[in-house]
């Protein structure tokens, strides 16, 4: 088993658009994702979900391991499609994996 280089894309955005974002990244070609609920602060102020408001002030963090091409496509399209109107950031970096076929179509 050798190590293969892939990209990890991270998206932090509003919980209310969770399903739309997940459908979107799968449609672009991601084979999976890992997701968690987080809090944060950015241009749009503090987003801290510990209230009755449920999803409203909650952030999600989505991590996707995928190829460089799909990673770049995810980044640009997520900014275009979602981050104009919704709070969020997106970034990526290199990672090394075993079993690269798990992450490719």
């Amino acid at each position, binding site marked *: 088993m050798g190590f293969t280089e892939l990209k990890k894309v991270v998206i932090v955005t*509003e919980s*209310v*658009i969770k399903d739309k974002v997940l459908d979107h990244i799968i449609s672009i070609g991601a084979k999976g994702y890992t997701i968690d609920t987080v809090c944060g602060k950015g241009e749009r102020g503090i987003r801290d*979900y*510990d*209230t*009755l*408001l*449920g*999803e*409203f002030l909650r952030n999600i963090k989505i991590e996707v391991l995928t190829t460089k091409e799909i990673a770049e496509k995810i980044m640009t399209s997520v900014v275009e499609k979602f981050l104009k*109107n*919704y709070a969020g950031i997106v970034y990526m970096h290199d990672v090394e994996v075993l079993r690269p076929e798990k992450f490719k179509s």
Partner: protein
Amino acid sequence: MPGLFDMIIASVLSPPLMFFVLGIIAVIAKSDLKIPDQVGTSLGIFLLVAIGLRSGVGIADIGIGSVFLPALSAIFLGFFIAFAGYLILKNIFKFDPANAGCIAGHFGAVSAATLAVVLAYIDRADIYFEPFIPALYPFMDTTALITGIVLAKIGMSKQIGSNTQTEASLRQVITEAVSGKGVFLLFGGLLIGYITGAEGSKKIMPFYDTMFYGILTLFLLDIGLMAGKRLREFKAVGASIIVYTVVMVPIHGIFGIVVGTLIGLSVGGTLILAAMAASASYISAPAVMRAALPTSNPSIALTSSVLLVFPFNASAGIPMYHYLAEIFAKII
């Protein structure tokens, strides 16, 4: 009936409202107090199921026929408040369509906490109401949210000159509004209460009844904490929303009184209808609006709902509507 002033004082000094105030004070005093979020959510679930069950048992008693006209009226009120609100906010206060629809939807929709508070009020005042009235919540709430969203989408599509997307997502808007947690629980509890009736639900009602007022206090403590956190957003609310709130909330209440009295409800039933009409939503509506109207900022409506509308209704509003409902009942 005691004087209006005494009724207001009694409302202000009732445990539920005092717990709400305690929550606000906790935030101001920088206390680390919080109701853990899963527990806060569950308190709300409990209250909605309890209200639903009680109403369902009530309907089983008096027959489903008498619910028809009140349900229509609730739909009308939800639609009318949101529709008028949209026009006022867009044309008089110059909001863009997305925010006009968003705010109008919040004000047309119903606050579950206000509904619980008015039920506690009525129980204290010991006046009769048709037991199914709380079950009108979903009708008014859903209609208002859908109206606000649809009007906003129409307004936006007019601006950018296209309505393809609007058509496509209208069904989604309606589905989401109808299947929303609050509406679903109240309807579900209602159905179960209706089907099982007083006899069938006998074993479970002690739980829901004994705990109702106590759970309400903790729920309002939680809402107070949320309201307290919104205080720092208050300056972002802006004069126009404050004016809209102060003028329209009592008018919405009066709409409710007029409609309730005209369709022949008791004073208690009319009062609940008025409180629902006057209330503005803040728990479920913000997330619904944020998802449906990406360019809207529900923070404004939310802050106003929880810092102005709720405290007003829970203190002076409800006794006022009660007072007016008594008068209207005599006139008509």
